[in-house]
C-alpha cells in the first residue's frame, strides 16, 4: 500500500489527479498497520471497563445464596429481580423523582442563561463583555467545591437548607463557566453573513439570538444539556451538605446511605447502583451520538 502511494507521488502530476481515493486509502493503511498493538490495547481497555460493569449487573441479579455460592463472574443460575424489588421498596422512586427535579431545575436555567451570555460574548465587543468572559474563564480554573462552606452558610441564611432548591442554585452557578465556553465556541462558528443578513432585515439582537443562533447551535445545546445533566444527576457533595431529610435524598446520596444500611446484602446494594444508572443509560443510548460528537467538538476546538 505505502509503495503504491509512493510511486503515486513520484509520478506526481498524472498520478495524483485521477486517483482521488489514494490519500484516503493511504490513511486507512496507516491505521491498519497500527492495528495489532493498538487493537490489543483497545481490547484490554475494554476488558478493564466492562468486567466491573458486568460484575455489577450479574451480581445484582443473584440471590444471596447465589452470591455466596457461585463463582462471582458466573451468570446467575436462578436470576432474580427480588433485589430490585427491595430497592424500589426502599423509596428509590422518591429519590428518582428528587434527582429528576433537581437535574431539570438546574440544567434548563443553566443552558438558557448560559446561551444568552455566550451569544452576547461572541456578538458584542467592549470592556464589560470582556470582563464577564474573563470571569467565567477564571471560574474554570477554580475548584468550586472549595466554596461549599460559604454556600452552606448562604443556604441556611436564605432559609433554603434541606430543600431541593438549595441543590439547584449552586449547581447552576457551577455549571455556567463551562457551558458558556462551549456554547460560545459553537456560536462563533455561525457565519457572520447570516448575522449581517438578520441585521439588514431589521432584526434586533434579541430576535437574532432566538431565530438564528439558537436553531443553528441546537446540537451544542443538547450536548451541554446532557453533560450538565450528568453532572447534576451524579452530584454528591451538594446533597450531602445541603440536605438532611431522607425524603429529599437524591440518588447518589441514597446509594450511599443504602449501602451503609444494607452492607451485608451486596446484590441489593449493586441493584441500587444499576437502578440509579438506568435512566442515564437510556439517555445515553438515545443521545449517544449527539453527546459524544458534541463533546469532542466542544472540548477540542
Amino acid at each position, binding site marked *: 500500500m505505502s509503495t503504491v502511494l509512493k510511486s503515486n507521488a513520484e509520478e506526481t502530476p498524472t498520478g495524483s489527479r485521477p486517483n482521488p481515493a489514494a490519500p484516503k486509502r493511504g490513511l486507512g493503511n496507516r491505521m491498519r498497520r497500527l492495528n495489532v498493538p493498538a487493537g490489543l490495547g483497545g481490547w484490554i481497555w475494554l476488558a478493564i471497563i466492562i468486567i466491573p460493569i458486568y460484575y455489577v449487573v450479574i451480581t445484582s441479579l443473584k440471590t444471596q445464596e447465589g452470591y455466596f455460592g457461585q463463582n462471582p463472574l458466573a451468570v446467575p443460575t436462578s436470576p432474580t429481580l427480588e433485589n430490585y424489588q427491595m430497592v424500589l421498596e426502599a423509596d428509590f422512586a422518591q429519590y428518582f423523582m428528587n434527582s429528576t427535579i433537581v437535574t431539570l431545575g438546574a440544567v434548563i436555567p443553566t443552558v438558557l442563561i448560559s446561551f444568552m451570555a455566550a451569544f452576547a460574548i461572541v456578538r458584542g465587543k467592549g470592556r464589560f463583555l470582556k470582563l464577564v468572559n474573563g470571569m467565567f474563564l477564571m471560574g474554570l480554573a477554580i475548584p468550586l467545591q472549595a466554596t461549599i462552606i460559604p454556600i*452552606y452558610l448562604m443556604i441556611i441564611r436564605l432559609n433554603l437548607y434541606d430543600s431541593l432548591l438549595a441543590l439547584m442554585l449552586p449547581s447552576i452557578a457551577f455549571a455556567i463557566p463551562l457551558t458558556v465556553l462551549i456554547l460560545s465556541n459553537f456560536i462563533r462558528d455561525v457565519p457572520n453573513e447570516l448575522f449581517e443578513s438578520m441585521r439588514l432585515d431589521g432584526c434586533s439582537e434579541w430576535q437574532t439570538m432566538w431565530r438564528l443562533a439558537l436553531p443553528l447551535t441546537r446540537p451544542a445545546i443538547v450536548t451541554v444539556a446532557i453533560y450538565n445533566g450528568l453532572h447534576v444527576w451524579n452530584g454528591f457533595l451538594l446533597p450531602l451538605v445541603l440536605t438532611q431529610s431522607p425524603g429529599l435524598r437524591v440518588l447518589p446520596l441514597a446509594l450511599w446511605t443504602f449501602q451503609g444500611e444494607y452492607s451485608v446484602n451486596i446484590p441489593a446494594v449493586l441493584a441500587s447502583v444499576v437502578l440509579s444508572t438506568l435512566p442515564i443509560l437510556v439517555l445515553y443510548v438515545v443521545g449517544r451520538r449527539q453527546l459524544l460528537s458534541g463533546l469532542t467538538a466542544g472540548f477540542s476546538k
Partner: protein
Amino acid sequence: MSNAVSTTRKPAARAGRPKGDPGHGGQRNAALAWLTVPALFFFLAFAVVPLAGVLILSFASWDGIGAIGSAGLGNWFSVLADPGLYNALGLTFLIMIASWLVQTPISLLLGVFTAGSQRYRAALAVLYFLPLLLSSAAVAIAFKALLDPNFGLATGLGLPFLAQDWLGVPQLALGLVIFVIAWQFVPFHTLIYQGGVRQIPRSLYEAAEIDGAGTIKQFFHITLPQLKYTIITSSTLMVVGSLTYFDLIFVLTGGGPGNSTRILALDMYLRGFRANLMGPASVIAVILVLIGLALALFLQRLGGKDKQGSQLEGM
C-alpha cells in the same frame, strides 16, 4: 425580559459608552451586555460571593450552627502548624501527579485509537464511555464489592493476587484510589483527545507517508506535536479536577485507612462538617482555590505566552 432589554437599552448605551465604537454602535453592545445579566447574577451570587466568603470565613470561628465569631489569624496559624495539612497537601499532589501520569498516556492512545476509521473502534468507543455515566458514589460502591477478597474479582478471575486488603493497607488504598479515578475519568479525556486527533489535517500524514515515515514516527512527529493544545486542555481539566475528587474517595475509603487517602478536599469536608470547625476548614478551602488558580496559570503558560487566555477559550 424582552421588555427590560429594549427599555434600558438606550440610556445604558449613552451612559456606558459616550463615544461608542465608530462603526456599529455601543448601543448594540449595551443591549448585548444585558443578556449576560442572568448568568452573571447566578455566577456572582453562588460562585464569586462564596469565593469571597470562604476567605472571610477563614478568619472566623464557626461551628456550623451557632454564631460566627472572629478568630483573627488563629485558624491560619493552627492549620499551618498542623501536620495533617501537609499530609493532605502531599497526598493531593501525589494523587494529582500519579493520576496525570496514568491517565494522560492511556487517554491519548485511546483517543488516537478511537479516532481511527474502523467500525469496530467506533463500537468499542461506545462501550469505553460507559463509566462517564456512573456517579462517583456508584463507582466507589461497585469497586468495593468488586474487591471483596472472597466474592469479588479475585475469585471470579482466579487471580489470588487481587485478593488483598485493598482498603486496609495505606499503599494499596492509595493505589486503588488512583486506579479507580483513572477508570472513571479516562473516558472523558479519551473523548477530548479523539476530537483533537480528528482535527489534525490529513495532509500532514499524507506528506509523512510520502517521506516514508512509519507509524511510530508519524505519531511522535505529527500526532503528538499537533495535539499540544489538546494535551494542555486535557491536563488542565485533569489537574484542576483532581482537586475535587472528593465524592469518590469519600465513599471508597473515607480518607482511610488512617489518613492515608485524606486529600485536601476531604480534609476540608471532615474538618468542617464532621469536626464542626468551619474556620480551619475554610483555610483549607482557600488553599485549594489558590492551588487551582496557580496550576491553571502555570499550565496556560506552558501553552505559550500569546496563547494565554485564548487557550482556555480554545477548550
